[in-house]
């Protein structure tokens, strides 16, 4: 069941269309990466989803309602939209006390989330003294304060050092393991690739792709090269399965549209010996770049 639904969402700022007829859905209990280069429209979309920015057209709902109409919104949705949304002269603990009062949770919960994000020792320091990474952790603590079932995180890895990125990955794994729904944006696929179940890829306000990570991984391995003494027979067998197989030498077949595993299984079924398999693949990151670059090229006037 979809808990986040974005339908035909559009936002124009004067002549600039930041988000253009965007539609996607996020199912309950899944972790979805919301990806796109800087300026793709990710933050604007998330802000429309959270009722902070008025859509020009379309709708964005959480649990079937606009965010503004959710009862106890902090208990349904936890959000991190920018690392610096805390008053610099206020201590981290007092910042969370205010949010605890807003969410009507006991102040003991403040200490729990400070501990969860590793900020207990800095609780009485002013936020203005915090590094960007510490502010990100405080943002996550704020989002988790009311124990929401849905988390919307905008570039939470920004400013984190490698150790912090690893910590964030573990935290997201933990949150996903608890059955929460997480929509996490990033402009770097690698940051979220190990955590997400599926991705929504955006470029210049348009939806470029929405797929599971497995589908994206399959796209990533775009050529498999096989050396076999029965190349012609393998070529025919692969063609019959819908893959594209080209005979590049008497003992070599180049395959696209099928993974190395699929080719291997087919060869085993047909008793075709395979002497060598190489995957001429591109990484997930490359697929991401290809998808977003293709979308950009399509839009660039010539």
């Amino acid at each position, binding site marked *: 069941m979809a808990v986040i639904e974005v339908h035909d969402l559009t936002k124009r700022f004067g002549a600039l269309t930041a988000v253009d007829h965007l539609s996607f859905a996020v199912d309950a209990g899944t972790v979805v990466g919301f990806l796109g280069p800087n300026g793709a429209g990710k933050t604007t979309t998330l802000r429309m989803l959270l*009722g902070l920015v008025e859509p020009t057209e379309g709708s964005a709902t959480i649990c079937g309602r606009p965010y503004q109409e959710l009862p106890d919104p902090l208990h349904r949705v936890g959000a991190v939209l920018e690392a610096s949304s805390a*008053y610099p*002269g206020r201590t981290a603990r007092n910042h969370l006390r205010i949010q605890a009062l807003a969410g009507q949770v006991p102040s003991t919960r403040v200490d729990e989330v400070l501990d969860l994000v590793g900020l207990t020792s800095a609780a009485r320091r002013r936020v203005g003294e915090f590094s960007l990474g510490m502010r990100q952790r405080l943002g996550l603590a704020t989002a988790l304060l009311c124990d929401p079932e849905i988390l919307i995180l905008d570039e939470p890895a920004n400013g984190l050092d490698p150790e912090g990125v690893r910590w964030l990955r573990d935290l997201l794994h933990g949150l996903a393991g608890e059955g929460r729904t997480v929509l996490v944006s990033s402009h770097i696929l690698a940051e979220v690739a190990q955590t997400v179940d599926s991705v929504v890829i955006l470029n210049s306000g348009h939806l470029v792709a929405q797929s599971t990570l497995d589908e994206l991984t399959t796209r990533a391995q775009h050529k498999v090269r096989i050396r076999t003494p029965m190349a012609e027979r393998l070529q025919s067998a692969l063609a019959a399965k819908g893959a594209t197989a080209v005979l590049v030498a008497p003992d070599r077949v180049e395959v696209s549209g099928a993974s190395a595993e699929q080719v291997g299984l087919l060869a085993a079924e047909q008793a075709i010996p395979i002497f060598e398999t190489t995957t001429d693949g591109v990484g997930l990151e490359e697929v991401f770049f290809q998808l977003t670059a293709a979308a950009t090229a399509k839009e660039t006037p010539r």
Partner: protein
Amino acid sequence: MIRLARIEWLKLRTVRTGFSLLATSAALTALFASLEASRAGNGKYGVAPLFSASGLATVTTVTGWSMIFAAVLGVIVASGEFRHYTATLTYLATPDRRRVLVAKALAVAGAGVIFGLVSALIATGVGLIFVAGHGYHVALGTGTLVAHIAGAAVGAALFGAIGVGIGSLLRSQLAGVIGIFVWALVIESIIGGLFTSVRPYLPYTAATTLAGIKLGGAAFGPAHGLSGGSPLPFAAAAALVLGVAALLDVITVRTTLRKDVT
């Protein structure tokens, strides 16, 4: 609404800004009350002697600073949400922005009561110390002194709410703070000096009359001490200042409050 006002009050208590403004307001009150007291009875300045009710009241009602600084606090509290991007969290917790605006106005009005009380107690203390120093009889009754102190609290509370309206409307801390000072100390002085019949209806002047400040008493420049016109009755002055705060809030609700929080 009570919970929202408590949240805003907790926000005020957990930063230094309010305390710094309170201290500045108190220090300026002490300074100006002392200056007025030291020149009382000197014909050159036109301040009546401290043994008279009007002379003593000139000193004990030097409470205009508390109103100005309460409004400055209101501007900083309201516009600071956008300056420090905390509006995002505020509106995520309470998506109804009108309720947030009213809660802020209530919290700053509460702080304004403290600003007014502290300022009025200091001014009254300075006046009484000077009176005692000269060995004069206290010319003002306790009831009048208490009424002036309570009036200062009401005036600063209402002016604090006006500050919240200005800060929410402009969203710019600098423009809001400068605007408050320029309006209260320059524009009202000029308008009040030129058109004495309009003077009682100017919002800062009306707020100061709540605290018993005579017309022109809190003005700077040509309008300072200028007589002419009658101050509004307490209820009318309070209603006028409250009306200005409400009007600013209505304009804010219909304009900037609807803007995207980006």
